[in-house]
């Protein structure tokens, strides 16, 4: 047994933390308020090698390395969850289908600039009527000459408004359930493509969009992977994304915890710092314990993934526990701040809103429980 990070990982963690605290943290409040993404963070992250963590050097990457990716997600989310989310999407679903299933030409055209932060990728799977039940994708892709014609709608598309390309799942064969789904790379300039931003509770710097396709032409060479096998392609990499959401949850929980700990030491009521009261002490003790446990679950799953071992159950457990944990921690951290916690002047209000999405995206907590019970042979 060895619970220590390697020397390289420690250095990486330090560098990521410095970048996050220096360049992301000061922007958090302002961009949450503006509901806008500071786009220049992308080329800046690319320049520092932070956008190719899961990919090999030949494409400009620094990996593959799930532990490093988790460290990066944790440190950036600790600085600001909304801004971090854009960078995390770029390191995962915004690029992974291209790396895993794209032709060499598509990799050169889209993946390489994405790793440099010069092109932003979006991932469009969910539809208005298709959430947890991914195999029910309704958007259609009809073959016509050298193109596919896409019709339908996608929603909750991460990085959708600022994206320079989008990875889109559509049905190439009608009514075939898990079979018959194909992944496409779509450029927003394509005719028949429109997009609209969505307003939301938290991670407000990150953009999330709704896409509409009306006879949108996509050239055949933009198909990622095998025609009709898209569902299996997409499901083969979900573990990694779940681990990363777990890591983001840990990072956000640390931010809330550290802020509350500081406040408990400074705020005085009844003649002493509130941290001297058992009621507050026990809250902070529980929060610290829960963060530690979630972090262990996340890094164990990341470690297994890097060893190439099966980790469906571990990834779901890490995501489920960490995402529910961060909501409990954010709740108590806000509570420790009393009235100030509810106000925009302290970051707790933002942390509390940001935490909520962790239990929904990349498979809701309900779906994680189903996956875990299936892994138990039920």
């Amino acid at each position, binding site marked *: 047994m060895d619970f220590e990070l390697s020397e390289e990982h420690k250095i990486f963690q330090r560098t990521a933390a410095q970048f996050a605290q220096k360049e992301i943290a000061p922007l958090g409040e302002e961009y949450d308020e503006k509901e806008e993404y500071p786009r220049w963070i992308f080329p800046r992250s690319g320049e520092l090698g932070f956008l190719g963590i899961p990919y090999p050097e030949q494409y400009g990457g620094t990996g593959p390395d799930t532990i490093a990716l988790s460290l990066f997600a944790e440190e950036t989310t600790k600085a600001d969850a909304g801004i971090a989310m854009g960078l995390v999407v770029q390191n995962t679903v915004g690029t992974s289908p291209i790396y895993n299933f794209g032709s060499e030409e598509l990799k050169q055209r889209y993946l390489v600039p994405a790793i440099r932060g010069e092109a932003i990728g979006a991932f469009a799977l*969910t539809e208005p*009527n*298709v*959430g*947890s*039940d991914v195999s*029910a994708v309704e958007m259609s892709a009809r073959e016509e000459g050298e193109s596919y014609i896409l019709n339908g709608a996608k*929603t*909750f598309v991460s990085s959708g408004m600022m994206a320079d390309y989008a990875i889109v799942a559509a049905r190439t064969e009608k009514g075939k359930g898990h079979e018959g789904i194909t992944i496409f790379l779509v450029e927003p300039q394509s005719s028949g493509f429109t997009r609209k931003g*969505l*307003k*939301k*509770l*938290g991670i407000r710097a990150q953009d*999330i969009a709704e896409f509409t396709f009306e006879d949108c032409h996509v050239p055949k060479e933009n198909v990622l992977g095998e025609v009709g096998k898209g569902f299996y392609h997409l499901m083969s990499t979900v573990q990694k994304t779940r681990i990363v959401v777990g890591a983001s949850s840990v990072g956000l929980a640390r931010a809330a915890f550290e802020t509350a700990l500081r406040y408990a030491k400074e705020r*005085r*009521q*009844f*003649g002493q710092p509130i941290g001297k*009261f*058992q*009621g*507050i002490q026990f809250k902070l003790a529980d929060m610290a314990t829960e963060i530690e446990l979630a972090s262990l679950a996340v890094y164990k799953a990341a470690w297994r993934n890097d060893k190439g071992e099966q980790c469906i159950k571990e990834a779901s457990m890490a995501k489920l526990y960490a995402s529910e944990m961060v*909501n409990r921690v954010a*709740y108590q951290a*806000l*509570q420790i701040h*009393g*009235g100030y*916690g*509810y*106000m*925009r*002047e302290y970051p707790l*209000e933002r942390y*509390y*809103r940001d935490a*909520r*999405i962790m*239990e*929904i*995206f990349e498979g*809701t*907590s*309900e779906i994680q*429980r189903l996956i875990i019970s299936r892994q138990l042979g039920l």
Partner: protein
Amino acid sequence: MDMELSEEQRMIKETVRRFLEKEVRPLVDEQEKAVRPISKELVKKLIPFGYLGGLLPEEAGGAELSYTTYFLMIEELSRVWPSLRAVVSISNSVLTHIHDYGTEAQRKRFMPSLLCGESIGFFALTEPNVGSDTSSIETRATLVDGRWILNGTKMFITNGVEGDIGIVIAQTDKSKGINGTAALLVERKMGYRARPIEKMGLVCSPLAELIFEDCEVPQENLLGKVGDGLRQGLKFLNSARAMVAFIAAGVAQACVDAAVEYAKNRVQFGKPIGAFQLIQAKISDMVTLTSAMRLLGLQASDLLDKGKPCRREASMAKLFATENVLKIAEEALQIHGGYGYTKEFPVERYYRDIRYFTIAEGTNEMQRLMIARDVLGISAFN
């Protein structure tokens, strides 16, 4: 034992609900998205039902409603628009204060405009350094040449930005602690600064920081006696806490309504999600908890109506309701999946709005200490 509402209470609840659904609900979404403060015109629409001063005797302009009846109306209002509830019930509590402690002259001067919604009231106790520990307030009131000179800062004051008449609790003699405080009636024209404070929810009911710098208040604006300021305010805490249970029940009901509607219509894996055991269990828990918090609230309001002590019951109702409504809002959001996180469905707002109440009217941490003190006979704070 009678666990049923009276015929009259059921009728009032029904009438109020119909009115709110028809006249108020259509306004909510747009105004919340635009973060536009509640207008006096809107507040005035609620007056015929007794939302302002309804608890007062008829000769004082009230409707002699029981606490239970008034709180049932508050529940319905919270179900539709928690921001509007905040504006209305704070103004209402200022009316009660003036009625209970004011001189005849003060009642005549301040109550009519509050009763007809021309003026909006606020109550200022909390300060930047004074939250749970209310006895250590720092805002000073000094009597100089027949005028009170007010200096200090008040925090998180509902209606503080738009309000016209406020009750400000200040200390007149620091050495006497709780016995060295006074309540002053302060009007906007007397000159203080109000800085709006942005917050997570209830965005159409702005909160303010109020800054008093040598603010002059006429001597006759003293409400009650010097030395009683804080005690007068604390007398209303039981009814305020009982009311919070009804606010929570209203929002919980709104969450249940939204979740049931969505679970029936949203189809995944070939059937409405309401057909899955997981969603059914969530809905059952939500409905059960909503009933339970309503019953605890009714227990407290019943004791209030009978004039019996209810400190423990009011704290328990507040504690239970505010924590469980959060669970209910969380599950309602969860049932909506990704849509629940967006502003296209109302649960996103319910989730933000109701978060305040584990803090307001005494944090739940304080409620636990007070309940335990009552049970154990030992105080954990002094």
